[in-house]
Every structure is written in structure tokens, then in C-alpha cells.
């Protein structure tokens, strides 16, 4: 089971994990990741723009790539968009597998993709200014290690 949701609403980590746990009984391992807005450098809020449709299908393609690389029993990705404040949740990635290495590696692979290559754009609001975050170096080491 693969579930991918892009939504403005918050999500409940416990409910996402419960859905992964219900994935059949063969799971021995669930690795999850929750990303939150950091209040660094006077950040007041962050607004996430995304390309609806393309965003879901690109994330789905990477979820399929993860399933090719590791034996995954269930996989859930929830990504929020819109205006978020420091401390707000941004993203949930959860992977259920028989063994811990596969679960951890697939979750890291998906997070590295989501944080560097997924079609989102970030507008940061600080006192008196708004800045669109620049793309990182596209050769970001965190994503390159999977290639």
C-alpha cells in the first residue's frame, strides 16, 4: 500500500503510524520521519507553493523507485502546503518493511528527494521581508548518494 497526500491541513503522526502498523503482520520495522518548520533567523512563517498534479505524480514516481530498491510493505507520504509557522509539521514519511535497514534507507531516500528535488517552492517571511528560497546546489550530496 502506497498513500501520498499533499494537503493544507495538519496531519496526526500517530494515525499515520497506526495505518502503517495495520499493513499485514509481516512488518517488523517502521521507520518514520517528521519534518517541522524551524524558527531560525527570525522566521515568522513559511509558505509552500506546489504544482498540484505534477507534484503528486513526481512523488509517486519516487515512491515506486523506493519500492524497486527495497522490500517495502507499506509507505505513506503526507506533505503540507500553504502558510506554516515555526513548530508546524511540514512532512511525514513512513515506511513499513520486514527489516529495519530497508525501512530506514527507504525513508531517508524519500526524504532526501522531498527536501531537494520535489516540485515545491518556499517563501520565507521575516520581519519586513519576504524571500523566495533559492534552489540548493542541484548536486546536493544528500541526493547524489542514491544515484
Amino acid at each position: 500500500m502506497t498513500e501520498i497526500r499533499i494537503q493544507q491541513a495538519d496531519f496526526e503522526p500517530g494515525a499515520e503510524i497506526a495505518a502503517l502498523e495495520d499493513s499485514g503482520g509481516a512488518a517488523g520495522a517502521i521507520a518514520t520521519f517528521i519534518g517541522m518548520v524551524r524558527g531560525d533567523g527570525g522566521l515568522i512563517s513559511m509558505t509552500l507553493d506546489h504544482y498540484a498534479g505534477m507534484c503528486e505524480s513526481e512523488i509517486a514516481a519516487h515512491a515506486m523507485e523506493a519500492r524497486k530498491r527495497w522490500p517495502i510493505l507499506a509507505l505513506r507520504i503526507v506533505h503540507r502546503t500553504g502558510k506554516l509557522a515555526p513548530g508546524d509539521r511540514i512532512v511525514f514519511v513512513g515506511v513499513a518493511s520486514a527489516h529495519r535497514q530497508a525501512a530506514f534507507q527507504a525513508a531517508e531516500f524519500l526524504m532526501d528527494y522531498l527536501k531537494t528535488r520535489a516540485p515545491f517552492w518556499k517563501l520565507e517571511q521575516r520581519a519586513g521581508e519576504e524571500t523566495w528560497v533559492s534552489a540548493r546546489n542541484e548536486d546536493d550530496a544528500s541526493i547524489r548518494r542514491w544515484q
Partner: protein
Amino acid sequence: MKLLYFAWVRQKIGKPEEQLDMPPSVTTVSTLVDFLRQRGRGYEEAFRNPALVRVAVNQQHTDFNAVLRPGDEVAFFPPVTGG
């Protein structure tokens, strides 16, 4: 042709999307950009340095040489930053 704009491209052009009938001169992304730049100051600013703008046609990343057909969905945006 359906056009979509994201992030600062959207802010400069002032709208998230629009439906436009193209003149015969528009056959590629590059000629579409030439056409859009003549539509007003916001477009001119958005495409002043085309090297800063990325394009997707029918939700596939491509480049400014891509050929366009009627009914295509063309999106312009800065390099993606991830979530």
C-alpha cells in the same frame, strides 16, 4: 493553451494561471516566452533572465527548445527547492 506560473514567476506575472490562444509564431517554449514578454511589464520581469526559469510541458520537466502543441499545459517556475 493553459499556462501555469509558480513562486516568484507567479508573483511577477500576477496570476497563478491563464488560458491563452497562441499566434502562429508560438511553436516552442522559447517562442512562447518571446510572445509572453510582449504582454506587459510583469511578464517582461518574470522572463528578463530566462536562465532563472524552468519549464514543464504537460507536467514533464523539459527545456526551452521543447515543441508545443495546441492544448498543452505549460508551467513556468524557478528551480524547485524541495519541501
